[in-house]
């Protein structure tokens, strides 16, 4: 067997590699370079501009933590806006909630959705739910034209260095605030605290979100294929607190099957290491 490896630079001095059996797809879209590989350890995986987006093996961690944390704070959520998430993983998790009436998914790059439908049906199946409405346009532009329309906004973006750049700006977070109802919440992909460049992005995002929302907390998950494996999510809201307003009993009654998320882990995820807490406090 050929000794083929996919490598990603987590910093200029740290490289993360996965042995691959073959590259299934590679193409340049209008926005980014899209590739899909097969690997023995992580199964099939998707990269954008040479950066790991998801693997079949560990995507459940990211998608469960992005969706179930806010849903357990307000299980009565009916309308959801998702920015990015062209792989369908977030849609799949949202689809588990019968109370959700409508989900608008705004993905800038239609080619990502096409590629995932073709190669990653395990996540792209999320789009098959009739409540999911896909829009292929700029997230910032879409949200600018909405007002008090959503109970929850999920920002499933790439890193701030790629097409996801606008999803880390103050004007984007401000427009999210405007687009949310009075009990509204926003959860975003919040980068990593460990390597310097990711930590800078984490601090910038936290500072900007805290400047817009009265409640702005950060929680963590362990995602093996993301840089350092230690990944963060932002939880922001107009009033609901992610821990003191958590509704564990109500959520448990829904009887949803999860592999990473549980109601005790929900609380623990908001307990951050000291160096992370300090970095976030510094940025405020």
């Amino acid at each position, binding site marked *: 067997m050929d000794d083929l490896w996919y490598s990603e630079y987590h910093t200029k001095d740290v490289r993360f590699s996965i042995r691959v059996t073959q590259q299934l797809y590679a193409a340049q879209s209008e926005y980014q370079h899209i590739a899909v590989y097969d690997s023995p350890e992580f199964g099939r995986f998707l990269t954008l501009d040479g950066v790991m987006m998801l693997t079949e093996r560990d995507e459940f961690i990211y998608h469960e933590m992005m969706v179930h944390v806010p849903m357990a704070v307000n299980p009565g959520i009916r309308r959801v806006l998702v920015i990015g998430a062209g792989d369908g993983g977030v849609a799949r998790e949202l689809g588990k909630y019968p109370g959700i009436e409508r989900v608008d998914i705004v993905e800038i790059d239609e080619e990502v959705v096409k590629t995932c439908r073709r190669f990653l049906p395990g996540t792209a199946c999320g789009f098959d739910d009739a409540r999911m409405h896909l829009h292929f346009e*700029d997230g*910032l*532009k879409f949200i*600018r034209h909405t007002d008090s329309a959503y109970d929850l906004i999920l920002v499933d973006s790439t890193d701030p260095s790629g*097409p996801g*750049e*606008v999803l880390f*700006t*103050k*004007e*984007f977070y*401000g*427009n999210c605030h*405007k687009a949310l109802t009075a009990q509204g919440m926003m959860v975003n992909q919040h980068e990593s605290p460990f390597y310097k460049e990711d930590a800078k992005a984490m601090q910038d995002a936290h500072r900007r979100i805290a400047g817009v929302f009265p409640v702005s907390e950060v929680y963590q998950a362990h995602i093996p294929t993301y840089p350092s494996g230690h990944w963060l999510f932002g939880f922001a809201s107009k009033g609901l607190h992610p821990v003191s307003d958590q509704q564990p009993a109500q959520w448990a009654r829904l009887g949803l099957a999860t592999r990473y998320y549980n109601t005790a882990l929900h609380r623990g995820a908001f307990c951050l290491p000291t160096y992370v807490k300090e970095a976030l406090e510094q940025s405020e």
Partner: protein
Amino acid sequence: MMDQTRAPLYEALERMKSDRLVPFDVPGHKRGRGNPALTAFLGEQCLAVDVNSMKPLDNLCHPSGVIREAEQLAAEAFGAAHAFFMVGGTTSAVQAMLLSTLKSGDEIILPRNVHQSVINALVLCGAVPVYVNPETDRRLGIALGMAMPEVRRTLAAHPAAKAILVNNPTYYGICSNLTEIVQLAHAHGLRVLADEAHGTHFYFGAGLPVSAMAAGADMAAVSMHKSGGSLTQSSLLLCGPAVNEHYVRQVINLTQTTSGSYLLMSSLDISRRNLALQGVQIFEKVKNFAAYARSEINAIGDYYAYGSELVNGDSIYDFDMTKLSVNTLGIGLAGIEVYDLLRDEYNIQIEFGDLGNILAYISVGDKTKNVERLISALGEVRRLYKKDNAGMFESEYLSPEVVLSPQTAFYASKRSLPLEESIGEVCTEFVMCYPPGIPVLAPGERITRDIVDYINYAREKGCLLTGPECMDASRLNVLEKGKANG
């Protein structure tokens, strides 16, 4: 027809590099090797072509080789009889236009909303300004173009005037009826000079206002480094067929460096080639960006991003659709306040804010996502900072009373007075509100209550007042009593 795919100066620099010429001449950094920190910062490529005049690279003061060829290509691309590469900014091109046209005591007709470089040139040559009162749009608070009846009246009242200067366009994108001004001025024996600091793209884009050379103007100062894409400080001076290019070159050499930068000159050569080959597509893209941003910004509410609907056939004869100017008074904020908020809160640097407007510079270098950011940030500024617009300054044209020529006043005996006590005196220095750098007071003009109020209001809103010896403009230099003849 010349071959516009050529770039003779750039090609000569490439030849010089590949020949590995051994430098025993200036500059002393010797292709960057003598200054590693600077080379690390700017790059080896850049330092390798920061060289001095030499036979294969020609000489800017006396072009006879590749610089002359490059200038000839530029002249053809711009429809001019001759083009000069300028390395002292468009300021140097404006000064060369005026200094090669006017002598001490000559009259020049011009609008008040000229760039400071024009009046600086009058200090140098001693000519006397005759201002055409420009109409002001009261809603927008901006000076417009020159209306033809005003131009005719001024020409009749000053039959000895030697030249007329026209902004083509103004900073805000407004054009006068240049073609008719040229016909009228030439019929009266005046030379027509155009300040095209904001008009490079008129020569290349489709459906844009007429360029100075196409309108038959005699000279034009063109900021290639703005919409043309060359390096900051590089510029072009264009001449029509009736101008003696050799005399103009002598005038340029009075003040221009003898060590013209090859970085700046090659950027002119490469940018000219790019515009000649790609200009139509480039400015189509810019127009589309601007049109999209205008319609989205107007949809936010309270802002007014203006466009060709302003055109009135006279004082707004045409409008430059690549410009994105937005009036901010509807949200109760001065343009300068919105300008500061965009930078401080949203990390967006725009070109300028004045008392009632902002201008975002759109160019070929823009990306859709950044245009979206600008629009969204403006939406947020309105949502978070909007206030009642009572008490906003209603800008009016402050008609200057010219008492002395700028040169006489500038060199006269003077004394310093607090701003409030200077009313009624003759100012001997400039006061500019920056940006956009158009004089509030020029040397030789009477200071009035209205002008002092304007200066105070502009300072309170956060404008930078530049020009006076006193750095914060709290004092002004005025003419010593009885020393009017300085």
